[in-house]
């Protein structure tokens, strides 16, 4: 049995590699991206640093959101009566923000059409 941390890292690696295949416009583009990921491109450049800084907020939010922290926080808040209002309102706002992001076309909502 492998240690949990190694298993976790392996899973993340597989998800990252899998998502290249999923996201690529063509098999050629997929190959290019994979080559760049495995030494075919410099480790970082000005563009990469800029993108990392610009998307730091969303990356951080995603990383924290992937842990058990939000659930733990919500469990603590749930007995409070305000949660009955806060739950639906926050869910609705999040759904609206996600819809707005899809509409703005930065991400293709019909990703599955590519298969």
């Amino acid at each position, binding site marked *: 049995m492998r240690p949990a941390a190694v298993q976790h890292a392996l899973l993340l690696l597989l998800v990252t590699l899998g998502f290249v295949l999923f996201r690529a416009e063509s098999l050629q583009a997929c190959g290019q991206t994979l080559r760049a990921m495995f030494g075919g491109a410099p480790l970082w450049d000005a563009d990469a640093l800029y993108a990392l800084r*610009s*998307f730091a907020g969303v990356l951080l939010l995603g990383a924290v959101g992937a842990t058990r922290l939000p659930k733990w926080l919500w469990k603590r808040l749930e007995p409070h009566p305000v949660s*009955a209002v806060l739950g639906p309102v926050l*869910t609705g706002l999040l759904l609206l923000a996600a819809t707005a992001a899809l509409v703005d076309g930065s991400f293709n909502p019909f990703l599955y059409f590519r298969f």
Partner: protein
Amino acid sequence: MKRKASIATAAVFLAVLFGFSLLHLALPDREVSRSERRRLAQLPPLSSGFSDKLEEYMLDQFPLREQLRTVNSLVRLYGLGQADIHGIYLQGGGAFRMDGPLQEKQVRHAAAVLFRRAGEIFPVASVALCHRTG
């Protein structure tokens, strides 16, 4: 209490889901997007490539598209601290697009072409101009 909150959450979700479908049917399709300065996709005829065109149509004619684009820009700029939206930067009360680096070779080429043309029309003046600018 918990049950009511669950029902409310489900109601919000259904309202958004069906609300936008109904709004799409109720609102007329738009011709152009002024903020993007482009024509919007229209309902495609049934032909080859229909699903691709339908995808563009659905995205372009999404109800309240302009407002939702604004929401997205606000969330990204102020909520997530993104530096630009589709390559547009806010700086000192204005919105700017960053241009690529200056291609000196192309500028020289364009200048050379311009001077040659000018030389065909005003032979003497262009020689003087070329001389002065190098």
